[in-house]
């Protein structure tokens, strides 16, 4: 399993340590029922990458390429079969749930249509403060109600929702607003790493752009590290410092964004890029925009 690895040029390889380093990650699923032989399917096969603190790695690939499975392993929603997941040097790949507890606040995940996982009758306040209620105890910040309310207020302002709507039920917000609330919730515990699994998919073009800009702003103000999973190469190109291409469970190409776009090697990369460029060319032709 070879991978096209683009080298970072010496001047852009900063001395910043990696926040997340993944090595040899594998996850298989078993298929087959009671009476059939159990055939393992390699959903993720021997994946390795790292993300320096404060940067964004985008994982792109066709549907079914293993991106979401990988995301679920990194956030330990699933336990990988083998490999390492190093958060600032500590391997969390095989930790038990009690040992994982302190990491849950450092890694948060935002999904596509996050609101489908929220109770539509819960208020924005209840949804955003829930992680604080679960994790912050005793003397910690966020352990009492007035304190939590203040935190939620400032989070809502940060993600661009008026705090006057704190008591409005989730069901009364629009799709784009709900994704913002999901971001606020993910930020409540001041995580270091955000895993965004198709978090911008299914949104309107204009909403998508607003939330993409919000992600950029939040990254700067909080020094956040993003693992951005998307089937949309154009969006990934806009947000990411580096891009990894997944195909059939394997990471087949990895490198700085500019290099992947200008010098794609693997067929999967070329196909994705060709398709994106073709859409761009069609639009450019009719609008007269120049590349």
């Amino acid at each position, binding site marked *: 399993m070879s991978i096209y690895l683009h080298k970072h040029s010496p001047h852009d390889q900063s001395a910043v340590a990696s926040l997340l380093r993944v090595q040899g990650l594998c996850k298989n699923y078993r298929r087959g029922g009671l009476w059939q032989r159990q055939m393992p399917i390699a959903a993720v096969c021997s994946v390795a990458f790292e993300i320096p603190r404060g940067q964004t790695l985008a994982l792109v690939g066709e549907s079914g390429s293993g991106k979401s499975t990988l995301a679920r392993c990194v956030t330990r929603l699933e336990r990988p079969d083998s490999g390492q997941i190093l958060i600032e040097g500590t391997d969390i790949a095989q930790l038990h749930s009690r040992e994982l507890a302190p990491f849950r606040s450092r890694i948060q995940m935002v999904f596509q249509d996050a609101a489908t996982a929220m109770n539509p009758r819960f208020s924005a306040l209840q949804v955003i403060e829930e992680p604080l209620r679960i994790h912050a105890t005793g003397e910690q910040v966020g352990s009492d109600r007035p304190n939590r309310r203040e935190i939620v207020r400032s989070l809502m302002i940060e993600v661009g929702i008026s705090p006057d709507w704190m008591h409005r039920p989730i069901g009364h917000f629009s799709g*784009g607003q709900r994704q913002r609330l999901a971001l606020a919730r993910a930020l409540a515990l001041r995580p270091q790493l955000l895993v965004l699994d198709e978090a911008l998919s299914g949104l309107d*073009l204009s909403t998508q752009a607003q939330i993409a800009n919000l992600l950029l702003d939040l990254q700067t103000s909080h020094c956040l590290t993003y693992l951005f999973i998307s089937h949309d190469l154009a969006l990934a190109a806009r947000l990411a410092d580096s891009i990894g291409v997944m195909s059939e469970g394997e990471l087949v190409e990895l490198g700085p964004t500019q290099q992947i776009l200008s010098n794609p090697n693997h067929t999967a990369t070329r196909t994705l890029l060709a398709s994106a460029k073709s859409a761009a060319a069609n639009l450019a032709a009719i609008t007269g925009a120049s590349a």
Partner: protein
Amino acid sequence: MSDSAEKYFVQVRQLAVSYSSQGGNPVCALDGLSIEIRAGEIIGVLGESGCGKSTLASALLRLLPPNARCEAGSILVRGRDLLSLSESELRAIRGREISLIPQDPALALNPLMTVGSQVGEVLRAHLPLRAEQRRARVNELLREVGFAHPDEIYSAYPHQLSGGQRQRIVIAQAVACRPALLIADEPTSKLDSILRAEIVALMSQMRRQHGTAILVVSHDPALFPGFADRIAVIYAGRIVEIGSSAEILGRPLHPYTQALVRLSISTVMSTEMTTVTAEPGGKARLPAIEGESLDPTCMPVGCRFAPRCSERMEICSRRFPPEFLSETSRSVNCFKYGE
């Protein structure tokens, strides 16, 4: 615009649809919308979430949810007003003359039936064919939508197919009876760019081979080049601009359309590295349209885009801009172009 029932296959006139909400004000989804669809044309309906485009698509099929009411207007299909037909008359039209390509094929297909028999179901509902004829027709349809081995696909179940294959199956269902009009509501928004291009090519092929008209609803202008003949732009329940694809995308007139096209270009051009100029230490932001569309339960009197419009004038909040004809068949509802 009067006796054009022959020229236009579908005429929607002053359609008003509102939804009642529990304990709240009714939401006006479409507010006096008029649009015409010519036989064999592909017309795009462009707008953001909540603008009423999906309501329009559902209204054309008379498949609005129970809490929706058609307050006013008419939908003429070859001269007959759909709003005055009975349910059994409508059943004869749906799937036969007007058909839907659903947004999410996974939800539209029955997981317990083979895909072949589901395509066959549509034929059985509308055409008097014998079983062997039906089977042959299903195989023909499966081949038409791109399956090289129809017999194998016939006996497959939806979960055995990929997302793209399922999308092709629902298209086969939609075109089974050779309808005159296909309605596609966000047909590609859940697909990656490769699949998107394939499905667009398939829909274009349907129009080329069978003269089927298609109404395509989308929030993304990038879907339409080389595909739609005309585009109607909807904002907050009303059409704000309509024209040919080349005009709307190449020389948009309405400030909303202009902002949307600019954003679309910027987004898709992200893969052309030379256009992405990052500030030192930062990444280039997208030219998003600031603000959000208005609360649909309380629409203001004037132009609904005015609060977000960088070019708004005093008159814009006083009354809704009427249609100004910029050129033939090209109209825009904006005071920049008239009084």
